[in-house]
């Protein structure tokens, strides 16, 4: 329903809740958690309503909310920089994923009884607001603004509840978010997202994606956030940040590349291979997951960079699979780390015996991450391969090789953690609790649903992927 403020309400819920939670006096401190959780669930429910009302087969954005933000630009002074929110094929799955993963993760990762609980809830909701706003943005500058909004909450979450190197990790995370934000905002102002955008806009857009998605060589912050950050940012980093980055690239940068760019393709494949090799030799569980997510995100970028409808559709679908698989893997890794007191792979081994459900979940989520059949990433990967095929068999072989290396990395990790001899200490570990099992179940159902019937997603994504780019300027 064009014009209805459905999306504004979607954004307003976590934003208002964050402010309320932050402003609540200490006397009412016990209300913070319920308010925050209620807001997260309300956002999820509202997103479901919007997604259900989303019309498949339509390429143009729906539920568009538009406002002129800055007038008087351009050579003739008649160009308006608009702020627009809308739901289309590029972000429909992302919105659902972000809105639903947040309450699930909050349920699992909240620091109960912590005296800085207020900061946690406010920051977590602010992160959700920033992520939703970014994926809903139809303008590159607005996208950059929302990405910037994630910097401060990240800084607080990682800096307060992180591991040994939390200050470093916090600084790097926030810095990268801001670099990505500014690059995107600047790219938007110089024409990113339009068909005739120049090299400067594309370069800035690529830098923004590399900083935020993230991709090598600016990926260390992401890995640090995953390894040193608290549970919430570990899940956020591995599930949501890459998804937002891929959506941003697919919507804004890819259309501006006028169809294809071999250089971006080569860089993305190189980045994917690099990350996959890092995953192969990862020594820490969260680092393994983080590098795997980076590699898959880079492959999604490859798909978007091909410039074809299949490639872009595949990118979004693969990114959705990354989000679901990454979230699940992060949660399982979190459970293992909490039980064992460390995430080092060398400390695990043979956990399939005492923790069979965790083992199954790990295998299932890893399968989803590497785009095996039954996960949305499978259809996404094939769409990307089909798109890359137009560039030649060598490119296809490279993409497939990266997937193979990544699969080997995750299998190696699985072996190290779940198979092999089980020490006496590991044998006493308790399997996933009911709460964790419920979250795992929900995620697996989502993976299976989208994996077995990918058409439900592709029918909504493909029309937007094949449509003409949405311009960021409005001329009077």
């Amino acid at each position: 329903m064009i014009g209805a403020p459905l999306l504004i309400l979607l954004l307003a819920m976590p934003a208002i809740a964050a402010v309320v939670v932050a402003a609540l006096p200490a006397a009412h401190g016990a209300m913070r958690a319920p308010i925050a959780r209620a807001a997260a669930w309300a956002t999820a429910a509202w997103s479901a309503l919007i997604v259900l009302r989303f019309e498949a087969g339509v390429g143009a954005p729906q539920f568009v909310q538009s406002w002129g933000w800055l007038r008087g630009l351009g050579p003739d002074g008649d160009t308006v920089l608009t702020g627009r929110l809308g739901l289309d094929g590029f972000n429909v799955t992302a919105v659902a994923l972000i809105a639903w993963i947040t309450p699930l993760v909050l349920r699992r990762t909240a620091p109960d009884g912590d005296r800085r609980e207020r900061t946690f809830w406010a920051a977590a909701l602010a992160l959700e607001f920033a992520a939703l706003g970014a994926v809903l943005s139809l303008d590159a500058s607005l996208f950059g603004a929302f990405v910037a909004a994630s910097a401060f909450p990240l800084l607080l979450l990682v800096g307060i509840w992180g591991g040994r190197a939390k200050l470093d990790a916090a600084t790097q995370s926030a810095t990268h978010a801001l670099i990505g934000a500014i690059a995107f905002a600047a790219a938007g102002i110089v024409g990113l997202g339009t068909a005739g955008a120049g090299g400067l806009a594309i370069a800035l857009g690529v830098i923004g994606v590399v900083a935020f998605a993230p991709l090598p060589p600016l990926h260390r912050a992401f890995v640090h956030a995953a390894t040193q950050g608290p549970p919430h940012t570990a899940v956020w980093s591995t599930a949501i940040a890459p998804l937002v980055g891929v959506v941003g690239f697919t919507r804004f940068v890819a259309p501006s590349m006028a169809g294809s760019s071999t250089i971006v393709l080569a860089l993305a494949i190189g980045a994917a291979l690099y990350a996959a090799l890092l995953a192969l030799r990862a020594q820490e569980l969260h680092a393994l997951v983080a590098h795997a997510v980076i590699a898959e995100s880079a492959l999604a970028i490859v798909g978007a960079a091909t410039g074809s409808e299949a490639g872009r559709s595949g990118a979004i679908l693969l990114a959705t699979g990354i989000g679901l698989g990454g979230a699940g893997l992060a949660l399982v890794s979190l459970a293992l780390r909490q039980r064992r007191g460390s995430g080092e792979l060398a400390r695990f081994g043979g956990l399939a015996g005492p923790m069979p459900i965790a083992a199954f979940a790990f295998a299932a989520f890893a399968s989803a991450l590497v785009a095996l059949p039954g996960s949305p990433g499978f259809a996404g990967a094939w769409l990307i391969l089909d798109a890359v095929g137009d560039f030649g068999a060598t490119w296809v072989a490279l993409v497939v090789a990266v997937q193979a290396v990544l699969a080997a990395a995750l299998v190696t990790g699985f072996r190290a953690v779940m198979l092999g001899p089980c020490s006496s200490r590991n044998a006493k570990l308790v399997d996933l609790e009911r709460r964790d099992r419920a979250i795992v179940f929900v995620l697996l159902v989502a993976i299976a649903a989208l994996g077995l019937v990918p058409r439900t997603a592709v029918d909504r994504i493909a029309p937007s992927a094949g449509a003409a780019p949405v311009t960021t300027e409005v001329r009077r």
Partner: protein
Amino acid sequence: MSAILPTPSALECALPFAVVAATAITTVLSRRPRIIAATGLLAGALAAWALAGRGPVVVHGTWFVDDLGVLSGCVALLALAASVVLGGCRAPAALASLVVAGLGAWTASVAHDLLVLLGGLTITHLGLVGAGHRADRDRALAAGRHAILGAALLATAWVGAAFLIAGTGSTAIAADVEQATLWGRAGATVIALALAGLVGAVPLHAWLGHGARAARPTALGATLAVMPLAALVPLLRVLASPTAHHAAPALPTTLAAIAALSLVFGALINVVAVSARAWLASACVVHAGIALGALAIRPVGGAEAATFHAIAFATAAIASAAMLRVVGRDPLATLHGLGRAHPLRATALAFSFAAAIGAPGTAAFPARLAVLRALHDGGAGWLVAIAVLATVVPLVGLVVLVRDLFLVPPSNQWDDPPAGACWIAGIALALVATIGFWPDAAFDTVRAACRALHATALR
């Protein structure tokens, strides 16, 4: 607008001067100098705003009352009023200096005559120097250097004016110099460069650091807000005038190079700033680069963006100065842990610093986007890239600062903040946020003000 409202009379044009001048005198003699100074400056701003939309008109061949001048003058007067309200300065002489600076800023904003313009700038400089803090030897030395370096720049400008007058035979800023001699063209160039230095451009920015160091918090915001703005508007007029077109053809390129230098320099020294003043001074250098870049590449479209950016920066400077008064400390290392003890103060401080460097969500951000667009439309992609870098690098420093504010254990105790500073900080930050999220109204005002700059010849 000018068709609806009557053209201002000479009396109306003189009213702001009279009000401010009277305020200066009264401040010295009064027992409540702060109230008098603040009220007088506010009244002067109101009187000036009454002239809005009624120009452009030349009054007595000396004053040029147009919306741009009115706007910049009002902003300058308001910034000075806010500085007075900040508190921390009771000496009538110092407060009177601030009022005098307002007089000079207003004069420079509406001057049609070169001599009047430079006279106004000189008065502004003297007034700001006069508000410096002398009890501390270090500050006194800094005030002295501020005075000398600023005077050197102004002297350069006077020399340039002499050249220009000799070359054109006219004291008007926008003299018709199609047949200007070498002297005239040299003079226009020298004036432009000197004004650029007063805006804060590298390598002529030396006065800025000393000025920031010398000033009390009261005058810190004024120094950073008023002088660059007061120098920018004349620079706009000079560059928009026929003189500049026929001056050195490489002037725009020179200015662009200076802009790039300022951006890089300002960003890098911002990273290593150890005090809040140094931070703000370096932010001013970056601002100068932004503004000059816009003017150099696109004198027509860039003027609006540059002016908008200058006003946004002025607001941010006032907000930052107010917050420094609130926290009562200057070295950044002494601010560690403020967020844990006083989260609201720390957030406000961080927001004000973010505003100074043009972070998203603050007034300077849309202004900076407008500048980037102007640079891009002018084909200066290289300058866009440098400007983006110059925005990103200080943001990294801001992240480190915010980290130290909120994530490090507190190392100090903090006193209760003065009420005046809190009010000014609140108003300024609200303004920064409002313009940051809804910039249209402000940008429309600036564009309307600059329209006259391009539509009419300044004769």
